[in-house]
């Protein structure tokens, strides 16, 4: 009984914690520009993150070593350092984006300019990281993120025949007003938003933080295989709301404030409360995860003691890296770059860096020295490999597309 409850809680936490500022921005913007034509990409992204997150959790559970730790061993110091540099930089951008997003949410509630909130939000994030236990932190913010379910309600009210709309948008390709290049670029952004690299670092380190053993593999699978796709449904709901309200009007979504309109218009003030609360919780949880990932990746590369499962005194350098990362993120968020722009950069660059992160995981997940008897099945290997090929193509295409479409303008 306790096990069932644990699985249930885990699923809900994964469900509520799935969405972050990248998903909000990418899905809302795409819905307004392309309707539901890119919905398939979200599904692909969800499958991808499900596969690789489960793998990284399994690697950490069986070998007791999180992913980045093993990357250095498997790929050597030089390649791992390149990997670290790229991942760390993108991770920093993501932290800045999440903090900016939180500040924007507070601005929506108070009306006071977001810049004031940026440092306060960062301090709040750090305090939670410092004081609150890992599992409590995860559960509280993850479950609170479930409030975003209100977007599904809003969508149903906006467009009760939604299932029909989805089917009608099955046509492949951009609408006549948009180019294939922009279509592809938005697809990459959606992929990057769904399959963020920090997720696998965090997930595998989290498995060690929570001292998972072989007995927890089932929980791991359930969380990932059920919780994440449900989170993907939320992403699609956000896209759908945007598509239903904004696409017919030729409105393009560039601000978080616009994202509140579909929910307000259909569910009113109460719905808006849920939305803002859910947004805050989901983005806060993402801010915690990315900040921790900054510490995890650097510490695991150099072999330092890391983790919230030891006292801060015992993992001093780990906590310093987190502190410094938050400071740099604040500086980025306070720069003239607006948070939505930072978010857009972070997800696109994340998409480009995905093969770097995922290839080592796939390799290690097949190594019995780490996995004992839980290596990948052939079927899983096949799908994961196909994904890797797709991601490599995406990676190569990203920068040229970004230049060609002037950032999706």
């Amino acid at each position, binding site marked *: 009984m306790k096990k069932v409850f644990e699985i249930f809680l885990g699923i809900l936490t994964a469900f509520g914690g799935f969405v972050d500022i990248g998903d909000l921005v990418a899905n809302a913007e795409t819905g307004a520009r392309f309707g539901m034509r890119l919905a398939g990409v979200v599904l692909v992204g969800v499958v991808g993150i499900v596969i690789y997150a489960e793998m990284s959790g399994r690697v950490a559970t069986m070998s007791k070593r999180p992913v980045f730790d093993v990357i250095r061993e498997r790929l050597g110091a030089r390649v791992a350092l390149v990997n670290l540099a790229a991942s760390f930089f993108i991770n920093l951008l993501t932290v800045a984006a999440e903090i900016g997003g939180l500040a924007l949410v507070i*601005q929506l509630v*108070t009306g006071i300019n977001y810049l004031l909130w940026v440092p306060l939000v960062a301090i709040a994030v750090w305090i939670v990281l410092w004081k609150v236990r890992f599992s409590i932190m995860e559960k509280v913010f993850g479950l609170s993120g479930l409030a975003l379910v209100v977007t599904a309600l809003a969508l149903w009210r906006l467009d009760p025949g939604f299932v029909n709309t989805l089917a009608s948008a099955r046509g492949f390709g951009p609408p006549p007003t948009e180019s294939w290049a922009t279509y592809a670029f938005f697809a990459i952004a959606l992929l990057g938003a769904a399959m963020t690299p920090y997720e696998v670092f965090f997930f595998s380190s989290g498995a060690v933080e929570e001292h998972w053993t072989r007995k927890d593999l089932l929980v791991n699978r359930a969380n990932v295989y059920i919780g994440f796709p449900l989170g993907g449904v939320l992403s699609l709901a956000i896209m759908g709301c945007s598509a239903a309200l904004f696409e017919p009007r030729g409105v393009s979504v560039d601000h978080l404030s616009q994202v509140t309109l579909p929910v307000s218009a259909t569910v009113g*003030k109460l719905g808006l409360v849920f939305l803002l609360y859910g947004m805050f919780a989901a983005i806060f949880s993402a801010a915690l995860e990315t900040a921790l990932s900054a510490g995890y990746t650097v510490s695991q590369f150099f072999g330092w003691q890391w983790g919230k499962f030891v006292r801060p005194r015992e993992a001093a350098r780990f906590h310093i890296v987190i502190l410094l990362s938050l400071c740099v993120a604040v500086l980025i968020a306070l720069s003239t770059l607006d948070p939505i722009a930072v978010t857009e950069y972070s997800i696109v660059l994340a998409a480009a860096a995905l093969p770097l992160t995922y290839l080592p995981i796939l390799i290690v997940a097949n190594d019995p020295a780490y996995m004992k008897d839980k290596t990948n099945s052939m079927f899983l290997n096949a799908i994961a490999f196909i994904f890797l090929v797709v991601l490599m193509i995406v990676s190569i295409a990203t920068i040229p597309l970004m230049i060609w479409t002037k950032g*999706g303008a």
Partner: protein
Amino acid sequence: MRFRRARQLIALLAVTAACIAPTRTEAAYQAKAGDTAEAVVSAARTVLVTARVAAAGQSFGPTLAVTVADVEADAASARDAFASIQPPDAPSDAIRRHLLPEVERAVGVIELVRIAARRDLLDRLPAIAAPLQPIAARLDRLATRFG
């Protein structure tokens, strides 16, 4: 996706160059006109939805005010960017003559809506925003014409 800041940073060169050196072709100018019209339509229609939501009591004052202010900034910067471009030839002058006044009208109304929203006069917003309806329709037609 509008990398607004990125455009202003990387394409700052282009805009400054556009001020110094004229946009070569009428086609390029026309394309810019089309983009500007689209941007302002987007802002205007967002304001219309926001006004409706405000009057129906479906949102909060601060949220609504931020929404209007956000899209007002979009519209204003689109107008500024377009207005600062040197039209290359006589047909472009005509494009400018058709587009700019409409855009100015739109921005003006949006400003009024923002002021009212910040003063929490939520039930008056639809009335104040009403002129945006025909303006947006006209701008839409211009956008389609300019491609």
